[in-house]
């Protein structure tokens, strides 16, 4: 019997971000409406591998996930060894829009999780007319910090171990062990200080509480889905955010945590497929 080869293909694209050349890795599968996926802080695009292997998605969507510079298989920019990585709202928006334009994506649906869910709110506000819709997973306009990020990057604590151990509780309690540990493996593999640098955006540079009311959901529909076990972006954070966006749709996903697409892909399907169907119907 022939070995199973997945339909996912990976390539590199060269972009200029922040005035510097960046070699950016992305994976994709499927045909149809572009579905641009944004990984969580301190991890990479592998989180979306289950969606890319799901024919119910890829029969209708071209699913694309890129690794932000410093993450996954995207290299950090030249000179990284002498700087502290800090993601900002401006840099994140630039990365997403530059990538989307470089690939020539026509009004992509942008789906991000956690910090990716945060930035889709800003993308909807500032670039909504270029997008088909946004889906925020574990998304809110602001959250209360629940630990000190100084622990994430220091010589007397192993960065990979502590990043994974901190976020381990954000995985929903019912998640299958296989997927729970693969999700955490992504955190263990993150480069030194990268998770902390992402959290600069998430904690310091992205308070969108005064921003989200300006989103025009007629131009860019907004769908928010948050897991019941997420105590970082809580269901209340998401519902509060949705209530401020006229026309936004929000749903709480029972039994899921902060990484729905990779911690429990089967359970996540039940929630995401109807949203994708709705987006597809509206676009037809």
């Amino acid at each position: 019997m022939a070995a199973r080869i997945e339909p996912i293909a990976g390539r590199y694209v060269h972009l200029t971000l922040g005035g510097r050349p960046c070699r950016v890795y992305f994976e994709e599968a499927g045909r149809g409406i572009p579905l641009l996926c944004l990984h969580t802080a301190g991890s990479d695009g592998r989180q979306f591998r289950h969606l890319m292997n799901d024919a119910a998605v890829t029969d209708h969507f071209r699913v694309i996930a890129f690794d932000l510079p410093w993450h996954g298989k995207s290299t950090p920019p030249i000179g990284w060894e002498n700087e502290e990585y800090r993601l900002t709202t401006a840099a994140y928006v630039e990365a997403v829009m530059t990538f989307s334009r470089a690939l020539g994506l026509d009004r992509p649906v942008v789906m991000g999780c956690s910090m990716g869910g945060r930035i889709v709110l800003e993308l909807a506000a500032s670039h909504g007319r270029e997008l088909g819709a946004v889906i925020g997973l574990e998304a809110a306009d602001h959250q209360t910090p629940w630990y000190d990020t100084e622990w994430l990057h220091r010589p007397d604590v192993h960065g990979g171990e502590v990043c994974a151990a901190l976020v381990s509780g954000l995985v929903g309690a019912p998640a299958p062990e296989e997927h729970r540990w693969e999700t955490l493996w992504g955190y263990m593999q993150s480069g030194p200080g990268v998770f902390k640098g992402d959290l600069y955006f998430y904690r310091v540079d992205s308070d969108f509480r005064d921003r989200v009311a300006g989103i025009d959901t007629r131009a860019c529909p907004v769908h928010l889905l948050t897991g019941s076990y997420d105590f970082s972006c809580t269901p209340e954070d998401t519902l509060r955010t949705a209530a401020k966006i006229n026309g936004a749709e929000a749903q709480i996903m029972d039994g899921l945590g902060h990484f729905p697409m990779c911690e429990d892909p089967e359970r996540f399907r039940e929630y995401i497929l109807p949203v994708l169907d709705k987006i597809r119907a509206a676009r037809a």
Partner: protein
Amino acid sequence: MIDRLPGLVNGDEALVRRGRFLTCDFLVEVGDVAYHVSVEQGRIASVTLGPALMRPWRFAIRATDEAWREFWQPVPRAGYHDLFALTRFGRARIEGDLQPLMANLRYIKDVLAAPRRLARSA
């Protein structure tokens, strides 16, 4: 539950290996009851019911009876399923020198969650 830790942890080879670089004493409070947990190279050397006068510890984890009871359910409900979920919602406090805790966080979390196995096998 905390008094069952030596049996639960020391018989778990992978867990002991994970904690092999940790030797320290920490305090766990279950409501008003304090337990001094002594770890030696990943093994639980002793659990001593407090109060133990003038006995030092590196860090303390304090939570209500109710919080621990929910935490130790086989599949705990949301908000009670993780040490930081407990602290996030004000149901637990972590105090003292956090370095040995953070450097061995997965180990400590797994030790604290070990009593869940009792409920699973009951």
